[in-house]
C-alpha cells in the first residue's frame, strides 16, 4: 500500500480533477469522503468556485493529515492516479408519543397523529404537485422553444417559395407575352416586319457610331457618344 508524507501542493492538477469529477477515486477517510462530496455539490450549484473549494479542502487535509487512511487516500490520488479510475416502526412510536401525551387518551393521540399525518400528506402532495407542474412548465417551455424554431424555419422556407413562385409567374407571363408576339401567322406579319426594319435601322446607326468612336481621338464628339447612344435608345 502506497503512502505519502505530506499533503501535495494545491497547485497540483489532481486537486482539480478530484473536485471536477475527472478523477473518481473511492476514498477511505470519512472526513475526506464527506468533504469532497460536499465540495463537488457546492461547485455544481455555483455556491463556491473551484479555486475556493481547493483552498478549503487543502487546508483541511493538512489539519487532518494524520487521520485514519488520509495518507492512503492522498497517495491513491497523487501517486497512483493513472491506475485508479472510477471506480416494527421503532421511531414511529416516538412520533405518536411526542408532545401530546400528557393526560390525553391514546385515542386522542392516534387522532392527532393521524390528523398531523394527513396534513403532512396534503402538504407533501402539494409540494410534489408544485414540482410536477414546474417540470411540466419547463417541458412545455422547451416544446414552445422548439415550435418557435420550427415556425421560423417554415416561415423562411415559405418566403423563399413565394419568391420562387413570383419569379416563375413573371417568367410565365413573359413567356406568354413573347408567345403572343411570335409571328405564327405568316400572312399577318406586317407589324413584325416593320419592327425588324426599325431594329435594323437602329443597328446600323449604332455600328456607324461605334466605328467612329473607335477611330477618333478624344474629342467633344466622342464625349457626346453616350448622350447620342442614349438618344437612340430613347427613340
Amino acid at each position, binding site marked *: 500500500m502506497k503512502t505519502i508524507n505530506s499533503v501535495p501542493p494545491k497547485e497540483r492538477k489532481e486537486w482539480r480533477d478530484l473536485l471536477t469529477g475527472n478523477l473518481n*477515486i473511492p476514498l477511505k477517510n*470519512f*472526513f475526506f469522503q*464527506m468533504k469532497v462530496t460536499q465540495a463537488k455539490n457546492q461547485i455544481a450549484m455555483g455556491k463556491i468556485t473551484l479555486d475556493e473549494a481547493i483552498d478549503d479542502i487543502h487546508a483541511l487535509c493538512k489539519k487532518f493529515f494524520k487521520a485514519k487512511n488520509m495518507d492512503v487516500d492522498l497517495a491513491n490520488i497523487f501517486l497512483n492516479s493513472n491506475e485508479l479510475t472510477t471506480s416494527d*416502526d*421503532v421511531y414511529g412510536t*416516538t412520533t405518536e408519543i411526542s408532545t401530546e*401525551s400528557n393526560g390525553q387518551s391514546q385515542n386522542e393521540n392516534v387522532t392527532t397523529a393521524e390528523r398531523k399525518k394527513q396534513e403532512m400528506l396534503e402538504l*407533501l*402532495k402539494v409540494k410534489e404537485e408544485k414540482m410536477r407542474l414546474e417540470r411540466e412548465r419547463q417541458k412545455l417551455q422547451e416544446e414552445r422553444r422548439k415550435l418557435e424554431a420550427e415556425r421560423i424555419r417554415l416561415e423562411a422556407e415559405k418566403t423563399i417559395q413565394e419568391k420562387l413562385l413570383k419569379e416563375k409567374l413573371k417568367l410565365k407571363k413573359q413567356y406568354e407575352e413573347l408567345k403572343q408576339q411570335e409571328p405564327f401567322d405568316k400572312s399577318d406579319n406586317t407589324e413584325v416586319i416593320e419592327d425588324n426594319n426599325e431594329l435594323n435601322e437602329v443597328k446600323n446607326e449604332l455600328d456607324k457610331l461605334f466605328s467612329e468612336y473607335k477611330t477618333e481621338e478624344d474629342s467633344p464628339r466622342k464625349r457626346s457618344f453616350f448622350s447620342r447612344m442614349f438618344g437612340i435608345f430613347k427613340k
Partner: protein
Amino acid sequence: MESKLYSVDEVKSFIKQNKIMALAGDEQVLDQLPEGHWIGGTIPYFMDEDAGKFAQDKIFVNELDPKSSNYKINVYDENNIEQIIKDTFNNGFTLIIMPPFQKVHQAFALKAEDIEGLYNNPIVGWIAGVDLNADATPKVYNGLNKEKFEDKAVAIHIELPDDYFAQIDITNIFEPDPESPEIRFFFDTFDALNCLIDGKETNLAEYIDKHNIDIKLPLVADYSGAHINVSIKEVDVKNGLVSFFAPVFESKVYRFAKPIDNYINRFEVKTLDYNPDNVFSCNCILNYLYGEFEGRKINNIKGPITFGEIGYQLLNQTLVSLIVDKN
C-alpha cells in the same frame, strides 16, 4: 475513565470531580443528577462492556477526553442551529444531542451540508430516544443548569490542545445493491411520494410494495466512497407515502441496500478494527433490533443505542465513533 454504564451515585461523584461528560440514560435517572459539566440525553438501550442491554437504572458515561482544556455548552433550536460551527473552537470537536423529529432535528438534517465550515472540526452526536414500549418523550439536558428540553438540541464544544486532533470514523454494514435501480428524488425531504426510478417517475411506496423490498434495508448513497444510509421508517401504500428516518437529497443517487444473510455476523466482521479507546461512540437502534444485539457482545463496541446518529450529518443504521489522536 472507561466509557460504560455507571450507577447514579457513581455519576454524581464524577460530577463532583468536575469531569466533562456526555451522559445517556433514562429520564428518571438523569433527573437525579446535580448541575455540572455535562450534557445528556434520554435512552435506555446500550452496548455495555459485556453485552447489549436495556437499563433504566444506570447511566452511560463518556468522559469527553481528559486532554480537553476548554469547553462550552450551547442550546440550539431550528432558528440558530446553523450557528453551531461559529461556536466551535479552532481545534476540537462538538458533541450534540437532539430530540427526534422536532424542528431542530429536521432543520439540521436538511441543512447540515450547507453550513459553512461544517468540516472544520468533527461534529458527532445522537438523537435521544425512549423505551419503545413506554409512553414517554425523549429529552435532552444541559447539565450546567439542569435545563431539560424536548424540542431543543444541546451541544458541547470541546477545545483540544494544538498537538491533538479529533476524527470521526463510521461503520456501515450496508452497501448499495448493484442490481438495485437508481433512485433520485425531486427535492430534499423526509417523506416522499414520487421519485425517479431508473429515470421513470414512479410512486416509491407502490414500487416497494410491488417488488417486496425488505424495508429493514436502507437506501444507500455513495459519498465519494462512504456509504450513507437513509432508513425507511414507514411505507404507507394506501396514501403512496414513504417516510424516512433521515432526509433523502435531490443531489444524491440512491440504491436499495444489498441484502444481508446474517446481520450480527456482518457487524462482527465489519467492527474487527473498531477502536475501543474512542472518546465517544453510538450505534443505531435499528441495528440493535434487527441484529438482535441485546445480550450479545460484539467485539468491543460500547455506547448508547440511539434513534439516529450524527457524523457531520444525520446518519442511519450506522456506528459512529469519535477518536482523539496526537498529531
